């Protein structure tokens, strides 16, 4: 079963043609890692999927045509987005950030969120801008876990975090993935390997490889070529 289908996706940012006919699909209730070096178009792909960049081609999320649908309706359809650099609302408190994410007619899952991130519970009245990077990441993740989203688009959740926080984030992501489809952009191959079933690799705005995550991890030549990393 396919939850997300992307075909012939072209996206420009200003004058730069960033994505050149990107094509991949994401299996339902699995975690798919979107990998590649810096600047190959991973974040651009997620932004286009949320309708935050003008795009040409096909993006289907469940039955929704994400190219023709305004951003807020894509989100209301059950898509949670955790942007690169978190983008929490710095001048709002933790509680206000969560309150903003509440949706009408949906019971917010505060108990689950605060049990995943107990750090945030004691900081409800603190301005989000004064949280540490790790706590901001927890807030950004908690914000999308508050609602029962069917699809999660998560952009570099472990970027710049201390190893101990990375473990906590991975744990939360694994929990979130139990009842959702996840498309995960990740630079940390260990994190991607822990969570993802499938992998899609981008290079220079095109998909250059897709297949099971294990295969990529075990093929150090492939990983080296497209990700610029030594595996093991």
């Amino acid at each position, binding site marked *: 079963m396919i939850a997300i289908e992307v075909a012939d996706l072209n996206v420009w940012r200003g004058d730069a043609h960033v994505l050149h006919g990107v094509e991949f699909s994401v299996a339902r209730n699995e975690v798919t890692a979107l990998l590649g070096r810096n600047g190959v178009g991973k974040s651009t792909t997620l932004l286009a999927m*949320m309708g*935050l960049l003008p795009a040409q081609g096909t993006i289907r999320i469940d039955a929704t045509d994400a190219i023709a649908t*305004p*951003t*807020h309706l894509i*989100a*209301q359809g059950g898509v949670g*987005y955790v*942007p690169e650099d978190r*983008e929490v*609302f*710095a*001048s*709002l408190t933790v509680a*206000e950030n969560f*309150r*903003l*994410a509440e*949706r009408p007619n949906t019971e917010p899952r505060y108990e689950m969120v605060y049990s995943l991130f107990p750090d945030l519970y004691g900081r409800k009245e603190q301005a989000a801008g004064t949280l540490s990077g790790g706590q901001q990441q927890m807030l950004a993740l908690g*914000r999308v876990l508050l*609602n029962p989203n069917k699809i999660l688009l998560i952009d570099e959740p472990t970027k710049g975090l201390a190893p101990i926080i990375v473990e906590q984030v991975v744990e939360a992501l694994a929990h979130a993935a139990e009842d959702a489809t996840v498309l995960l952009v990740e630079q940390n191959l260990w994190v991607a390997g822990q969570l993802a079933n499938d992998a899609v690799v981008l290079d220079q705005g095109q998909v250059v490889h897709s297949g099971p995550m294990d295969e990529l991890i075990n093929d150090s030549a492939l990983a080296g070529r497209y990700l610029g990393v030594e595996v093991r």
Partner: protein
Amino acid sequence: MSSFVLFTLTGLGLAGLYFLLASGLSLIFGLMSVLNLAHGAFFAAGGYTAWFVMDALDSVPIGLRFIVALLAAGLVGASAGAVIERVLVRRLYGQHVEQILLTIGLGMAAVALMGGWFSYDPRLLTQPDWFGDTTEIAGANVPNNRLLILGVAILFFIGLMTFLKRTRHGLIIRAGVENPSMVRALGIDVSRSFTIVFALGGLLAGVGGALGTVYFNGISPSLGTTQLIFAFIVVVIGGLGSIPGTALASVLVALTQIYVNNYLTSGLGSISVVVLLAGVLLVRPQGLLGKAAP
């Protein structure tokens, strides 16, 4: 000493006017990145509405009539704001040059329309005698209308802060001023807040115009445009999108203007405000309470 108290309270009255005009501008720019150059027209429309109500409803007791005039001025401003956003500005989000042309054009058309309608000569406001009487404060005889303007502006400041802090619309506006795309990505239709903010800006400017007619002792079509320049200076000094910043900058700008005019050379006040603006921009480009660009 007594003249200092008089100048200070007069300056605070002027600060109240600046706040009412500038707070809407600041929110509109903060949330939508729209430089609303037609904002002065809301101010003038409020002034004429108040003048019309005071003139036409002469059977209503004058105190009550002034309250009706204030409410009507706010209503006219709010309606004008909502209609302009829905019908015109909405089509041009993200197109900054076109927006500026649109709002400049609207502002000029509004001045011409009001001039044709009410003539370019100032209209004097019928007002309660009490406004012109003075109250003795610390040895100074302060005209009551200065105190009235200050009081109403403080009420609106508190009301606006409460709206922003305590309601869901306020929460969405505060978040949207920071990052409108992320608000959308959470499933919220920010464009509904755009209409609310325009209406709110129109309401505050309309009330400001009614009070401005009292302060300046009459209303003429270009009064709003003249004051708009100072309102923009206030917005930039206070920090875009920050209401407490706008309040603080209103006081700073108005007091500077009044003190310089009265203690140094009359007429130098307006220039000194520009110097103040330059100074703040050099030291804190994001404004006193604004957030630094990331």
